[in-house]
């Protein structure tokens, strides 16, 4: 089960381009596995953001945003509305965000925080490109997570170890930050690199501690 929770509206607003419209995209999720909230969540967030002055060019609910093929087909349906907005607000987990970012080629701002993945070890492979930090930077890093693509998890740019675009830790892999650079360049958004990323809040990252403390809370209730 992937657990998700809505981000604070003010955090979302801060990351969106001011005065610019957005396209709202939601995800139906997969029964028993994740619950990004579907239509209800989409309408709720739409209302909340509109109250705060965000103008949406349109909205769309997709069955599984983590599926790139499905994303491409769905985006075609609302092609005009999507490309009238310079940014998308996406109500999905961070796997969905990355898939969407790779497909749509523009700023994707997350509306949810991905907190934990529990009980699906057999299903979720090692390649899951999300470290579940609960504090997503994907909109600033071109949809490629530096925590995943950089072995050092550097948040403000690369170290000096890359050689011919290859990572110092594993020369079979590309330098994550050079991938981010190429993606942002393609999107005409290199200015995003100048953003200063604060140190990660690790109290938000350790799912086991969260789990343990919530279990402790439950036990205290008895």
């Amino acid at each position, binding site marked *: 089960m992937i657990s998700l929770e809505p981000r604070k509206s003010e955090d979302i607003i801060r990351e969106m381009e001011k005065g610019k419209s957005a396209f709202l995209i939601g995800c139906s999720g997969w029964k028993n596995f994740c619950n990004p909230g579907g239509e209800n969540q989409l309408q709720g967030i739409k209302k909340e953001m509109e109250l705060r002055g965000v103008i949406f060019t349109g909205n769309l609910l997709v069955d599984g945003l983590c599926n790139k093929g499905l994303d491409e087909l769905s985006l075609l349906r609302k092609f005009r509305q999507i490309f009238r907005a310079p940014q998308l607000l996406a109500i999905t987990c961070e796997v969905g965000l990355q898939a969407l970012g790779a497909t749509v080629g523009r700023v994707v701002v997350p509306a949810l925080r991905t907190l934990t993945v529990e009980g699906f070890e057999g299903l979720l492979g090692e390649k899951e490109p999300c470290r579940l930090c609960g504090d997503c930077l994907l909109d600033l890093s071109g949809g490629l997570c530096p925590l995943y693509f950089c072995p050092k998890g*550097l948040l*403000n*740019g690369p170290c000096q170890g*890359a*050689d011919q*675009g290859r990572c110092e*830790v594993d020369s079979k892999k590309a330098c994550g930050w050079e991938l981010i650079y190429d993606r942002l360049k393609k999107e005409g958004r290199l200015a995003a690199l100048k953003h200063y990323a604060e*140190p990660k809040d*690790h109290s938000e990252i350790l799912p086991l501690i969260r789990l343990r403390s919530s279990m402790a809370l439950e036990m205290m209730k008895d």
Partner: protein
Amino acid sequence: MVFQEKLQRGNFVITCEVNPPKGADVAERLREVEVFRGRVDALSVTDGKSSVMSMTPLAFSHFLREKGWEPILNISCRDRNRLALQADLLGAAALGIQNVLVVTGDYASMGDHPQAKPVFDLDSIQLLQAIQSLQGGQDLGKNVLKGRPAFFAGATVSPIPNTEAALELQLVKMEKKVQAGARFFQTQPVFDLGAFERFMKRASGFGVPVLASVLPLKSVSMARFLNKNMPGVFVPEGLIDELGSAGDRVKASVEMSARIIRGLKGICRGVHFIPAGWEKTAPAIIEAAKL
């Protein structure tokens, strides 16, 4: 006059790399650095260089100060989380260490303890911000400190990386480091003065002094090794041929390094000399450069 003042006055400065000993005996390493007495402005003390475990540079910097040297304490993000980094910085300030050089650090798998857990809780820019925060009287948890440290903080930059993306990223990161409080920079070893000058044309706008690293080329095989294995280091073929065809290789190498130092004098604000085992030959290089 201390290192900071010399840089601020516009003097061409020279620092030298020192690696703390692997072991508890400091006497031998302290004797070795004596060859630099009167020849360099500060000693840059590495923090587990290349992820090889050695004595903490905090302790070794203290011993250097006791002997009258001015240390530049290197502090790497590889081995310590934000608590330990801040704790060491407070300790350094209390010991009278003023200069710090912030580095990301090589990955643990590159060194002699590849099994170690790499930390990287903060990156180099966040660590510079942490230093600013401590200097402002608060730690990263926003708790008030009793006694504020005051540092002269520097950072590193790789001026000649081999892809366009890497170069642009280095410049963006350099700018972020300046904004986060870096007041001087130390580079990867420079051999190609033309390429370095092109980098400096773009980097000089940040208004922060840059010290270019100078590494003596001891042999043709060393040059080939650097080109093959050391990211951001490029030895031009001309220099390799010059060394290969020299009758007296050591003499040729000394003259080559001295020439590079003289060339750098017109391009940047100082040099950071890396002896790489050539402590005995290093004074000849510095003399030959006639700074």
